[in-house]
């Protein structure tokens, strides 16, 4: 049970971080992984390869889309971007996250 909850939470937060990253600009897989590591400051310790199945899952559900593009060093790279429904999902996730953390904060501060 616990493991399952942890994985879900992990997956949820990974999705959120991917959304957040892509909400700024379209990015290739490696770029996303760099960004996720930066933002989470190493807290979210996932190996980089796990990102791709996650991206595939998000693409399958239509939240992100991808196209071939050219990277800064002039190589062919797959660029991911947020779709309209992805953007909506991001907002909903952020909203619920804020509510959740605010609730937690309130509980923790009164305790």
């Amino acid at each position, binding site marked *: 049970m616990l493991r399952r909850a942890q994985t879900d939470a992990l997956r949820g937060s990974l999705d959120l971080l991917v959304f957040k990253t892509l909400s700024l600009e379209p990015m*290739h*897989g*490696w770029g996303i*992984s*760099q960004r996720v590591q930066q933002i989470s400051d190493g807290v979210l310790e996932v*190996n*980089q*390869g*796990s990102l*791709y*199945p996650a991206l*595939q*899952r998000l*693409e*399958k*559900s*239509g*939240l*992100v*889309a991808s196209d071939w593009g050219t*990277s800064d*060093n002039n*190589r*062919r*790279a*797959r660029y991911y971007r947020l*779709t*309209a*429904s*992805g953007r*909506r999902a991001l907002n909903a996730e952020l909203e619920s996250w804020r509510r959740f953390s605010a609730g937690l904060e309130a509980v923790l501060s009164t305790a």
Partner: protein
Amino acid sequence: MSWLDGAHGRLALLRSRKDADERFASEIRFHIDMETARLQREEGIESGEARRRALVAFGGVERHKEALRQGRGLRWLGGMSLDFRLGFRMLVKYPGLTIVGGLAMAFGIWVGAVTFELATLVAHPTLPLPGGDRVVLLRNWDASASREEPRALNDFLGWRQTLKSVTDVGAYRDVSLNLTSPDGDVRTAATAEITANAFRIAPTAPLMGRVLVPDDERAGAPPVVVLGYDVWRTRFGSDSHVVGRTVPLGETYATVVGVMPKGFGFPVSHELWTPFRPELYDQAPRAGPPIAIFGRLAPGVTLESARAELTALGQRAARDRPITHEHLQPQVGRYAYQFYEPGLSERATMFAINGFAIMLIVLVCSNVALLLFARAATRESELTVRSALGASRGRIVLQLFTEALVLGGVATAVGLAAARFGLSRWGEEFLRVNTGRLPFWFNPHLSPATVLYAIGLAVLGAAIAGVMPALKVTRGLGARLRQGTAGGGLRFGGVWTAVIITQVAATVAFPAIVMLEQRELVRIRSLDVGFAADEYLAAGLEVDVPADSATARVQSARLGASLEEMRRRVAAEPGVVGVTFADRLPRMGHPERRIEMDGSTLREVAMASIDPSYFEVLGAPILAGRSFNTGDLVPDGRAVIVDRGFVDQVLAGRNAIGRRFRFEVNPQSDQRAAEEPRPWYEIVGVVKELGMGGATERGRASGVYFPAALGSSSEAQMIVHGRGDPTTLGPRVRAIASAVDPTLRVADVQRLDKVTDPILWAIALWLRLTVLLTAIALLLSLAGIYAVLSFTVARRTREIGVRVALGASRRRVVTAIFRRPLTQVGLGVVAGTVLIAAGTVAVSGWVPDQGIDLGAAGLSLGQVALLMAYSVLMLGVCLLACVVPTRRALRVEPTEALRTE
């Protein structure tokens, strides 16, 4: 938008396994390269170490690739699509097997689809009308006489007012009316005198003009008629200005107000519609014309609640009007079931018919399985390698199943196309021959249910033809793999031997059925009716029977006068030798009843009512006694004439003249009839046999002829003897009939020898089917024998080589190879012959005890000899299938044979 996004994303990922694999491989390559470059740049690690760390950070490239593949889903489908492609490649690679196996399966599916369609049509008819399952038929059931009481006009008028659970209550009266087309041609048309709300029950827009409206039913409204499509096309030459024309219809004239589109036949199979006017008829209870009543269940009402309401109405009527309604029970039932309410036994028959079709598929596919097994056996090394590479047994079975499924798919397409063709070409005719009048909702075509059923059959067939050999081939595959040999492990066991023997037996036995059918065809065609039937023209003449007896007497007198006038005028036509009348035509099959003679002999005799001139016109001399004369036509005349069949079978050849007989008490009739006097009839003459038995009846009939005055029955068959081709008289007979009496309806104008045509047609259809079945069985046996033998020879290459190397003679080698197939074919021929013999005995057993020699029903000596010759031929043909593999075996070079291992 989000749905679209999702669909797009899924589609892109599903597009191709290969594309997706490549894409992620490229992405991962890019990622590792970028990470390696970053580590080199930012942490100053040398390139080899940087790459290693990047890979570690990535966490197992292959593992993630696999996760990606699994994330895409439908993995097994990818494998399946490969199997399907392989299946198609196999179709092309083994064209012989494709053709033989495919044809056989297609035949099985064709039979299955056609039987299913026809059986469903009969067992579960549906009305092709909006809300057709809520259209109902209402009737009065006379419980005392156990039959319908169709004179229900009084009840109809009542029900129309009071019924709550059934709306749009309408009625029709079934009449046949003579319609005169603009060119003066008079023909009978099936007409429905019908209430206007019929066109609400069956809402169909007319092709032209309008349908009937309630205003047409009011007293004094001008007579109108709506034409059916076929009548409009054939009788009015598709005249686009037909609406508004006045045409002679029956005894009056009617104005055409509309034309219905093709296929419209409500209420049953009608081609003209005229308004139903209740005020024209006697409206007293249980009086008036026979009518049929229909309606639609009110919204939300079930058939049961409608039944309850009608039962209540019936009980009230029985209380209020006991004289007429005491035994009447109003009933309501689904409209589509009016002609045929399948009971338990009929449903069982339907199951049996479909079961037969399924058995046929199973049989055919077991044979195809044999072929596929032989093919799989030649591919044993391929399968072994696959197994060695890690394919599970289930995976290999699935592959072979898929291959069979591809074959089955092609066969289904062919079988369904053939079924569609067959149904549209012969389906309606077949039903008409078997059921008589064909209601409009009996429209045989490929329904979606039938297509689904056929697909089911194909899957079943593929399971048998694919899985059975696959299980056999894959059994012990692992053990063979361990032994390191790719051969010698597979053999054709007892099952396949049985399959081959069954096939050969079927190939031998089917021609016997063909022969029996052929014999029946020839027999019916060459039946001796005792006179030159092709010189005679027959025409059915009839009038409506009035409901009440007083009018009936008037009508009868009028019909008698009309027929007499017709006799006079037709006889005066050039080329006419003679004219006579009878109630039924020779070979039509006559009603039969049991009689008792002076003693107590009870015999079944066939009866015909004839005009006194009958024997003279047919050119049949009186063999003993006298012919009929007009004096015999008095109401209590008791003179009858019998035929030779009667003399030989009932009287055992004794003198007939002066003997008397009377009818047996009919055990089925009720009390009153039993008390009726049973007069004695006296035989006054003997005549030769003139086709008193039906076409399909075997043996001789015992015929009794009763003299009948013209017009004593509402229908009569007129027989005209002409010089030359009698069919040229047809149009004149029609013209004279309409001139003599416009209400006289002429039906079935045909040459007298054509009476048996519909039966011949049906038998010929069965004959064709059996020939097809035989051809398929023959093809399958040949292919099976060929496949098995080639397989065996291929397996025994080494043995043959060794034998030849050691100096064995060719004959010995050939004998060794041939022994097995020869035994199988021989056993098959014997089994087939036994089948024929058993069948012959069974067929002979069916013939009732009428002193017929048993041989007549079965096969003649000549035919048995012919069958024997055929069996030998079969043996030869089967052995021919062995020739190619044997030659191949004999060409084997010993050195080469020894090298194969």
